[in-house]
């Protein structure tokens, strides 16, 4: 029979329990666990002199050992931590519970495309790299840092790069990620009509393998050992590590070790093999993809989220305000009412973060065809081969004023191809003659070319590539300026992406074209490379071999300071050629909820709070961010 507790005994027991609880909370927690520890055995510094610049490369030899240690983790009231996620990462104290650490995002154009990024880029893959590691990635300051590789060095003659791969990276099937896996991945992609193949054409023999002129094993990539990947380049390529942000590794086992056709493993949760922080657990085309935490993840990314759910997301600011969409972007194409709504609401205003411009819009002239077709189908001599004509058309456009009128402050006028703030951006290009709006000078130039007041100037189609609202508006403004200032008529021809590319860049029959180019990686080469001569793989209808040779020399210069100086000169010549006229670099205001926090949402060294939606070219798979218990959005409800 149980003894009945007296009131005095109950109070005593309660007091002792409370005191005991307090003492236990304040005392260190002793946790015994087996950890993998990396012991630093030897560290040397090698000073390598390259021309005038001294590069200090820290070489670290590491030995991995398994030791059993007793870890004493002191938990104090001053530095509490939140829940520990399935990858063993402790979330900050203000984090919401793990079941709420879910990132919901849009599913992308074709609901997953071909699955893995090295299967297809343009038939979109999943819009994040949760299931694989790329060779490199960017930090919030847009610096290229290690991901699949920890460090890299270029050979003295610049003919190859060696990448030291991240130690201990494993596939979810338990196998280690080896250098040979990276070799297999690139060989398989290029041998199988990869639509982003051109991006890798700096790699030796890549274009020939893609064209099936050479076999995959002749591609300039090899595994020196399990942890060293060597990539040979056609010419010195100082920016190769930047290209690595797109190069994601795939497991050869997932392909049955075959370089042949895809077996769609990356769309099948049962077959998915991941080395990234997530693994595919549900896939319904166009409806939903779920990515759960890869508990075997051994990479260097600090990812707090437990799950990513991709599904069609409602559009519009209203869905973001309602909390049904987790991100929203405002740019020049949004209705002004949305911008006003954001500005008027203190919560939305605090959640607005200007993003750096990443692309430039421009128009260009056809400089490869001696004859061009007019809108009536007549063949006429190409007037754009005369630089005076091109200069006249450029100088007749008051882009500074137009940018101000059309974009409501969400774009910078462009004077070169590199966007404002991009590495090697050159503000002095504004002073080039081609960039100076001067109607009288334009008229004189046109008259000198034999078309006084536009008399006798043929009427051409002006191709626009799948124009957005503001691109259409801008093109109409250009059309009006040419008519008013020079008496030249053009007919705007909006075309879908494919029809435009066929006419302007493949057949090269379009007389005039209006297009944009966006960065792929954080180096000036990302923009300037595509302006190389059409005969050597450049995209534009201009066979500027002389410029290309000079640019290639600049681009391949291993002295980084000298390289940037030379590239600045190349960009200047590009603008001066008036083969293109650079118009503006738009930027967006990214909105993300104020209770989404973490180190990667903080301002970077340039003050940008970057949020690119987790895609490539920014922080991947939403690492370094989590949902906090902040009530900062309560007034929106």
């Amino acid at each position, binding site marked *: 029979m149980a003894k009945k507790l007296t009131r005095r005994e109950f109070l005593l027991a309660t007091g002792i329990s409370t005191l005991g609880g307090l003492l236990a909370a304040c005392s260190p927690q002793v946790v015994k666990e087996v950890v993998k520890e990396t012991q630093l055995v030897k560290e040397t510094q090698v000073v390598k002199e390259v021309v005038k610049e001294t590069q200090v490369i820290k070489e670290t030899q590491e030995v991995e050992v398994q030791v059993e240690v007793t870890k004493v983790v002191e938990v104090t009231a001053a530095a509490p931590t939140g829940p520990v996620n399935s990858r063993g990462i402790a979330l900050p104290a203000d984090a919401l519970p793990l079941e709420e650490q879910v990132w919901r995002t*849009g599913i992308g*154009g*074709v*609901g*997953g*495309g*071909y699955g893995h990024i090295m299967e297809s880029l*343009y*038939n979109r893959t999943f819009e994040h790299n949760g299931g694989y590691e790329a060779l490199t990635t960017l930090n919030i300051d847009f610096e290229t840092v290690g991901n699949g590789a920890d460090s890299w060095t270029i050979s003295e003659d610049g003919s190859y790069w060696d990448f030291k791969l991240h130690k201990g990276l494993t596939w979810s099937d338990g196998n280690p990620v080896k250098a040979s896996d990276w070799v297999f991945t690139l060989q398989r992609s290029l041998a*199988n*009509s990869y*639509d982003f*193949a*051109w991006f890798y054409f700096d790699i030796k023999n890549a*274009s020939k393998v*893609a*064209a*099936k*002129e050479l076999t995959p094993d002749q591609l300039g990539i090899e595994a020196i050992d399990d942890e060293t990947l060597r990539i040979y380049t056609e010419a010195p390529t100082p920016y190769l590590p930047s290209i690595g942000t797109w190069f994601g590794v795939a497991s050869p086992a997932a392909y049955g070790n075959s370089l042949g056709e*895809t077996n*769609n493993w990356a*769309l*099948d949760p049962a077959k998915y093999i991941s080395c990234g922080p997530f693994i595919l657990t549900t896939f*319904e*085309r*166009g*409806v*939903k993809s779920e990515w759960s935490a890869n508990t075997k993840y051994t990479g260097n990314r600090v990812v707090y989220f437990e799950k990513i759910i991709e*599904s*069609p*997301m*409602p*559009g*519009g*600011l*209203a*869905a973001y*305000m*309602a909390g*049904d*969409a987790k991100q929203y972007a405002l740019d020049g194409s949004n209705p002004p009412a949305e911008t006003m709504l954001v500005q008027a609401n203190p919560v939305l205003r605090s959640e607005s973060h200007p993003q750096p411009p990443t692309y430039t819009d421009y128009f260009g002239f056809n400089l490869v065809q001696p004859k061009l077709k007019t809108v009536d189908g007549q063949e006429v001599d190409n007037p754009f081969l005369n630089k005076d004509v091109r200069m006249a058309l450029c100088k007749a456009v008051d882009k500074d004023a137009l940018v101000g009128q059309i974009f409501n402050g969400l774009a910078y006028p462009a004077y070169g191809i590199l966007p404002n703030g991009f590495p090697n951006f050159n503000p002095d290009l504004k002073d080039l003659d081609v960039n100076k709006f001067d109607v009288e000078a334009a008229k004189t130039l046109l008259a000198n070319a034999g078309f006084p007041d536009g008399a006798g100037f043929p009427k051409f189609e002006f191709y626009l590539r799948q124009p957005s609202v503001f691109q259409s508006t801008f093109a109409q403004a250009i059309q009006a300026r040419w008519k008013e200032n020079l008496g030249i008529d053009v007919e705007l021809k909006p*075309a*879908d*992406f*494919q*029809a435009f*590319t*066929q*006419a302007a*860049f*493949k057949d090269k029959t379009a007389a005039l074209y209006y297009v944009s*180019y966006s960065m792929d990686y954080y180096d000036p080469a990302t923009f300037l490379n*595509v302006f190389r001569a059409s005969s050597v*793989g450049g*995209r534009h209808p201009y066979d500027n071999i002389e410029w290309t040779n000079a640019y290639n020399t600049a681009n391949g210069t291993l002295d980084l300071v000298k390289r940037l100086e030379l590239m600045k000169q190349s960009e200047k010549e590009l603008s001066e050629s008036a083969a293109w006229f650079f118009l503006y670099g738009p930027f967006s205001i990214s909105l993300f909820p104020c209770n989404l926090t973490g180190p990667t949402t903080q301002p970077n060294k340039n003050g940008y709070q970057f949020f690119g939606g987790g895609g490539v070219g920014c922080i991947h798979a939403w690492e370094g961010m989590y949902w906090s218990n902040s009530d900062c959005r309560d007034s929106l*409800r």
Partner: protein
Amino acid sequence: MISYIIRRLLGIAVTIIFLSLGTFALSRTVPGGPWMKNAEIPMSDKEVAAFKEKYGLDKPFFVQYGIWFWNAIRLDFGRPFTAPELTVTQLIFKQLPYSITIGGLAACLAIFIGVILGMIGAARSNSTLDNVIVSYSVVVGTIPSFVLGFLLAYFLAAKLHWLPAGGWGGPRNWVLPVIAYGIPYTGGVALWTRQCLLEAMTSDYVRTAYAKGVKERMVMAKHVLRNALIPMITSFLPMFPGMMTGSIFIERVFGLPGLGQYFVQSSSNRDYPLVLGITMFWAILIALTYLLTDILYGVIDPRVRLTEKRS
């Protein structure tokens, strides 16, 4: 009736064959190709040749069409370039339930509200209430569904938090898209219903019925509604396949899965198998709907059956 249906089905089959040939030719004639989707740098000729070989696009036109046709009559429309893990048929039937749910409910809503408004308008012809209904019908018919969608999402989801702004969840998620999709159609339905009823109400046989002393309720049910149903059915029934195969605007605004986006994307992606498959699916659905409409027409109107027998 059976021979009529068989003849109609044969006619549909011939139409579909010609349509498939036309669509096949047009899809190959449009500039670009699946190898050029969003490509900032177009593939070289050799790369394009490799791509075409991989997907069998290097064969002569009629050989390609012949292969496609032979497979299509066995209901194999190939695999979409952009969704290689599924066949075209699988993709369509996986997406269709979402579109049918939203589109079907929206069509029902449009017909339900529209018919009621049309009946009220006809019954109170030329009254203030009728003018209000006509004005509503004209105004609402000019509002694009995506504009209405954004307005509904702003007021009912963002401001009042009564309903979610979208996404595919339970019936609560369907309310706004169904309203945004259905309401603009109510105007047309109301005006057409009103017109059909007014025509029937002013017919000789209605006047005769009244003259014979038939009660108003009986006249409306037996003579007016039954006769007005004939043009209404021919107009409203084809609304269903149109709305149930999805709307890219509604899907985008409310973040819904469905077929609508594939109608647009398959074309811009130059996804030839999907373009062909969706076009054929759409054409067959429309043709069968019109066949059903004609059959129903005969059920409602005995004169159609008589004509059929005589012929």
